[in-house]
């Protein structure tokens, strides 16, 4: 039992931090224009960030969930919109890696590892607050290919993706298809004005008679479920990043202020609560990412716990940040109001907090959900 980062983890975190610097510098403009320059994503690819979960044989750095969470926290602290694109990309890469045949992996993964191509997963995010992003596309089987039709709303990365990884429903299960952005029948909607997550390249993806390459796995249900866990953890880490950015901005502001803010108890208490709740969210995320989970339900429960606590912590921390800055907090130029908007968007994006609570409740109350009975409250280990 040692929750400290080991040497390799610290080194990765430092590399991701450095790579996120350029993103941080561009964050205000990205938010203003609701657009992420392609060069930034390319640079993240060159820094190894985009292949963090892919095996070395395909050009990745061979990491897993903990590495993904370290990367996503650094990016979330810099720009939530950019981080959302990266989470979509990591999900897409992971789905190809777990569901694809060796041929598919060799064809598709190297470009994803280096960021030469950006990818995203076309799950429908336009669901109610009680639901997780849905499989909204149906597939008809052709010999080696799939014919896809359907609409996926609120897909982060859609505007800049070169490759779409599309979970689709067939009779009796889930299949996964991959399709290039320019494929006939695939259209990307316009970017809409949003509260937060500007720069996330979020749009609607419509498929009509699209021919997609079928990834190998016969039933990709398990691969998709694992990708959802990666999404929960990546998004949780992104929220931890927002919380940390809020805390860092606020602490620097307090220390630098001439108004004696550091001696004001109400300010001290806000800083302390921000730090505590962000740390709690971080530990839940790391626990989900790295503990030995006995079975899939435990990982799912842990990841959902992290996701819901982290979103809440990010909203609380960024709200306090705006407050600590006083009237300055209301000015776009001060840089904290964006955190508040991004945090709130994360409470509803890609699996709203209510949907995550449902996931946890299924594990806590198995008898009410006809699942196998086991102890949901065991201590770690």
């Amino acid at each position, binding site marked *: *039992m*040692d*929750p*400290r*980062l080991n040497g390799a983890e*610290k080194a990765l*975190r*430092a590399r991701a*931090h450095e790579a996120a610097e350029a993103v941080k510098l561009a964050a205000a403009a990205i938010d203003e224009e609701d657009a992420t320059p392609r060069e930034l994503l390319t640079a993240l690819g060159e820094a190894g960030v985009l292949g963090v979960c892919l095996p070395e044989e395909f050009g990745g750095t061979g990491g897993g969930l*903990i590495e993904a969470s370290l990367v996503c926290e*650094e990016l979330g602290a810099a720009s939530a919109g950019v981080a959302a694109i990266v989470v979509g990309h990591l999900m897409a890469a992971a789905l190809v890696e777990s569901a694809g045949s060796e041929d598919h992996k060799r064809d598709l993964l190297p470009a994803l590892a280096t960021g030469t191509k950006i990818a995203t997963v076309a799950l429908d995010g336009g669901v109610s607050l*009680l639901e997780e992003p849905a499989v909204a596309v149906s597939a008809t089987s052709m010999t080696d290919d799939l014919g896809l039709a359907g609409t996926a709303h609120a897909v982060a990365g859609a505007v800049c993706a070169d490759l779409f990884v599309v979970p689709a429903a067939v009779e009796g299960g889930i299949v996964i298809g991959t399709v290039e952005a320019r494929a006939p029948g695939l259209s990307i909607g316009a970017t809409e004005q949003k509260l937060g997550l500007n720069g996330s390249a979020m749009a609607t993806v419509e498929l009509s008679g699209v021919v997609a390459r079928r990834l190998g796995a016969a039933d990709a249900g398990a691969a998709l479920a694992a990708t959802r866990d990666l999404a929960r953890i990546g998004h949780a880490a992104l929220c931890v990043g927002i919380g*940390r950015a809020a*805390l*860092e901005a606020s*602490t*620097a502001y307090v*220390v630098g202020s001439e108004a004696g803010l*550091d001696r004001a*108890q109400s*300010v*001290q*208490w806000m*800083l*302390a609560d921000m*730090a*505590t*709740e962000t*740390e*709690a*969210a*971080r*530990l*839940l995320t*790391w*626990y989900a990412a*790295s*503990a*030995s989970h006995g079975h899939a339900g435990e990982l799912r429960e*842990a990841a*959902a*716990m*992290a996701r*819901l*606590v982290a979103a809440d912590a990010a909203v609380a921390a960024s709200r306090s940040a705006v407050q600590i800055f006083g009237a300055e907090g209301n000015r776009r130029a001060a840089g904290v109001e964006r955190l508040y908007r991004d945090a709130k968007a994360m409470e509803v994006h890609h699996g709203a907090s*209510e949907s*995550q*609570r*449902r996931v*946890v*409740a299924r594990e*806590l*109350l198995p*008898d*009410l959900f006809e699942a196998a009975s086991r102890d*949901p*409250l065991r*201590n*770690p*280990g």
Partner: protein
Amino acid sequence: MDWDLSDDQRLVRDMVREFVDAEVTPHAAAWDRDKQFPEEVFAHLGELGLFGMTVDEDNGGAGLDLITYCLVLEELARGDASTCVGISVTNSVYCAPLQTYGSEEQKERFLRPCAAGKWLGAFCLSEPDVGSDAAALKVRADRDGDHYIINGTKAWVTNGAVAGAMLVFAVTDASAKRGRMSAFVVPADHEGIAIVHEEEKMGIRSSRTNQVAFDDCRVPRQWLVGEPGQGLEVALHSLDGGRAGIAAQSVGIAHAALRLTLRYVCEREAFGGPIGRFEGLQAALATMAAQVRAARLLYLRAASLRDAGEPDTAAASMAKLYASEMANRIAYQAVQMHGGYGYVVDYTVERLYRDARVTTIYEGTSEIQRLVIARQLTGAVRRVHSPPAENSGRT
């Protein structure tokens, strides 16, 4: 990073869990109702080596790490918070400071027997007029040749009436700006010590909480712990070490409340089925479960940093702050979800609600914890602005 417990850690935790399930949980309600201090159970816990868990084997202790200690406290608190607090005070603010600051003679006479389970320890810092402002003590220890004479009254002393010995903090140099107070270890039956009051409390009612009066209590200078004037350091060091333990105690109370509520909502029926099927309750329970786990992870982190030789004051304070506030919230919701039955003594949750209430108050109020955390945050920014901290929580 590694979240898995070692085999030893799991073994000790499971042993205590078994003991608590059999010998503590079934009796906790009666002990609370009758304000009965369970001497025999404490004697058993002493035999199990739980009085000096982190004391070195050389000094008669179990030589356990802080992680294990915290896991044990969580198990004890799941059964009975009162039992837990008697153990935690003995361990963290009696035995631990003696091990760190005590002389060999003091350790032999005052640490070894306690660690062996012979008697409990107590900690006399607060006074009727002095709580958070520990530096403003009034109890005096006046030098008289080879002795000190202690006069004054200490308050909020857990185990006061049942301890074998006490750590006592008193002013030895009233005019000094720093080094004003010193720590002493005194046997409970020493002349000049009297238990003058027992508190009637909202919760943790089977725990003894006393006022201890010192009336010309004459102690040899060999019983001064550490250096003269080092008292505040000894006190704060002890409290700092105890914070992760109190966090663990809070998690134990919350965990018990949550488990009971999960069971209750599966059994209680309304509007055509178990109330656990209502989305509002499920959502609240999910949040509660997540927060219980978060609190556990916070105390494990604080404990493991200390075990690794990298103690982080803010980490311990965060754990105590979060866990105690969380335990109160969870206990409140547990009572609510039990409906009318949450309000009567036939069900356990009302006791958990009362037991949880003190956790945000003792061993450093939530307000003090926030102060400690904020100081570390702003102090860090003032020092050097550096790349991401090696341990999280220092950002």
